[in-house]
């Protein structure tokens, strides 16, 4: 009980000091609101262009169109040309994507449809644009005043990052629009169908999920910097360390207390992040309503479900725990707050931003990420993003599970691996931090 009381006294002191420090109010309370509000504002003002992940977004295109021999016309081929042009055009929302129109060309429609809607194989066949066999003929025969049914372009995608993103939908829609010659009563209809597996909510916007992951990770990793620096290097700089270490409390308990105080602050931060998330969602809805750009709403809006909120908070806490663990070791090696903060940002910023941006574009959970994924998964926060993605959409990502093919493999095992990796990293960081903190040199 005495040890608990000591630790609580230390935690209380840390939180009291933090409460009276301006950086805490800004970093932990205002910054999440600011970040989400800023992002919402930027998106409202500037829009967004679909970029590609490191290995490029591959869109499968299957043209069953039999064309029209009389007019020597195959609109399916024309669609493919326009699609390819769009991927080369800097201003196009599809810029950077890769079109693969060869791979599944020999599959028949029913087989292809089955593969797309099979959770084990879906990621190998999506996103997929299908032009039906009577596309050109229906288009030529179509007359809107006669109440005909227009030809359909079908797009099947998985929610989760850019590959299933509504960005793709918006890009394809813009090409579809080029076929719509309303004055000649010629239109093409566009059926964009996210592949929804049972028990999963169709994401209002998979891009939104990537956005949540990016913002949450980056801020969870970077926000603790001032606290960690002040709490450790700051004690040395301000000459309070020696007195503290001379008290009848072990250095490990001092370390643990500071860690707990940091996690308490991160908890506040996570809640403010959730508030920011709702703010962002509301701003997008307002923007979509005011400018009539409904695709923006569908692209960026986030529907915070309870499970999403729980996963976001868990992801942030775990990520921050890792960051604080690493930060403690770094701060214990420096003599002043500025050096500690610089080192912290130097070590954390690049991997956090890298993982955040790649996570935003949905590259992390995808098996197709290939060899670069091995390097990416060394970074602990890649696992945090994977927990969020796979936790929310287990069936969606089943076909791209890391452990697919292993006995008992699948999303459940993937999640265990991701959690386990984070826990191991946390324990290693704490071990290193405790050793650094135990040095006699920490006094000088």
């Amino acid at each position, binding site marked *: 009980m*005495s*040890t608990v*009381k*000591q630790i609580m*006294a*230390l935690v209380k*002191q840390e939180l*009291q*000091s933090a409460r*009276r*420090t301006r950086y805490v109010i800004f970093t932990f309370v205002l910054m999440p609101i600011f970040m989400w509000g800023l992002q919402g504002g930027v998106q409202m003002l500037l829009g967004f262009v679909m970029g590609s992940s490191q290995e490029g977004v591959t869109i499968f295109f299957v043209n069953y169109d039999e064309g029209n021999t009389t007019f020597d016309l195959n609109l399916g081929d024309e669609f493919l040309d326009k699609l390819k042009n769009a991927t080369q055009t800097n201003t196009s929302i599809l810029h950077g994507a890769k079109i693969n129109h060869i791979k599944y060309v020999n599959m028949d429609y029913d087989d292809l449809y089955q593969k797309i809607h099979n959770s084990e194989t879906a990621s190998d066949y999506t996103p997929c644009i299908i032009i039906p066999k009577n596309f050109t003929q229906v288009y030529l025969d179509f007359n809107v005043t006669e109440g005909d049914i227009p030809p359909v372009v079908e797009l099947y995608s998985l929610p989760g990052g850019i590959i299933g993103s509504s960005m793709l939908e918006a890009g394809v829609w813009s090409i579809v629009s080029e076929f719509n010659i309303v004055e000649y009563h010629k239109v093409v209809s566009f059926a964009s169908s996210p592949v929804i597996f049972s028990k999963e909510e169709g994401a209002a916007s998979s891009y939104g999920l990537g956005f949540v992951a990016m913002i949450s990770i980056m801020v969870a990793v970077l926000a603790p910097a001032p606290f960690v620096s002040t709490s450790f290097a700051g004690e040395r700089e*301000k*000459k*309070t360390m*020696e*007195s503290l*270490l*001379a*008290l*009848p*409390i*072990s250095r490990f308990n001092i370390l643990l207390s500071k860690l707990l105080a940091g996690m308490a602050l991160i908890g506040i931060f996570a809640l403010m992040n959730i508030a920011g998330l709702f703010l962002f969602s509301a701003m997008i809805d307002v923007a979509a309503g005011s400018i009539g750009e409904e695709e923006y709403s569908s692209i960026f809006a986030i529907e915070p479900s309870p499970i999403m909120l729980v996963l976001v908070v868990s992801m942030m806490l775990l990520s921050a725990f890792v960051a604080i663990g690493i930060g403690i070791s770094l701060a214990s090696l420096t003599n002043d707050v500025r050096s500690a903060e610089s080192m912290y940002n130097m070590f954390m910023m690049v991997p956090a931003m890298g993982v955040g941006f790649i996570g935003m574009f949905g590259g992390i959970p995808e098996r197709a990420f290939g060899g670069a994924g091995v390097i990416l998964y060394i970074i602990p926060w890649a696992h945090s993003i994977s927990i969020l993605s796979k936790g929310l959409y287990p069936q969606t990502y089943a076909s791209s599970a890391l452990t697919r093919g292993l006995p008992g493999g699948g999303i459940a095992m993937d999640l265990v691996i991701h959690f386990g990796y984070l826990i191991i990293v946390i324990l290693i960081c704490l071990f290193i931090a405790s050793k650094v903190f135990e040095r*006699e040199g920490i*006094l000088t």
Partner: protein
Amino acid sequence: MNIIEIENLTKRFKDNVALDNVSLTIQRGEVFGLLGPNGAGKTTLIRLLIGLIKPTSGTARIQYNGLGPFDINKDIMEIRKKASLLPQEADVYENLTAKENIMYYGQIYGNVPNGEVRRRTEELIDMIGLRGRENDITKEFSGGMKRKVLVARALVMDPDLIFLDEPTTGIDILGARTVRNLIKRLAKELNKTVILTTHDLSEVEELCDRVGILVKGKLAAIGSPDELEQQFTRAHLEDVFIGLTTGEGVLEEDLTTKKRRGFISRILRRR
């Protein structure tokens, strides 16, 4: 009765011998002064006794009233429960009030009810003359006031053994007087043992029952100020100190045999 017994205590930092085979005893209720030039090993000795660093060799045992003896190599937490340290370079937590600073340390001791900590804190606030400012954030305090808070913080849990590393540095004359009176009271009335380092020899002469002079990690001399002055045939302790630390040599006289060793190079006298 001895509260501290130090035996052949040595501390080496890589190639530097900070403390070299020091042996001495300190008695209960004594105010023991540690003198020496910068780098002599005074702070190293204190840090060893409070367990901030580990000795390279040797040991020290600390015996409290009815508790111990505790070995610095094994029982450091037990030692710290009844000891406190005011380091030379120490500061308050600037975002806490004076009262919070003092209470915080009291609560770290863990085994005392908060009510008792609060009572002691109020006593100390009166004792050090901070009444009226106890709820002010210490960021606004002068250096001297901060030092008072630090002294109070070191005393909050009523330790038996107190290490004060230059406690009156940076304090005004009145504040220094308050701290000195407090040290006298701690030792004489409350029977606390105080180990004190200072560069103010008048303070040593006023407060210390005995003095140990460290030079390059070795214990060059030990005794009461009067004994040292007699032993080294100097009118003032300062002369003894300067002689020992500069290596100019001092006249050593064996008081029992009255033999003169005779390696005088220069003698400084002050009347």
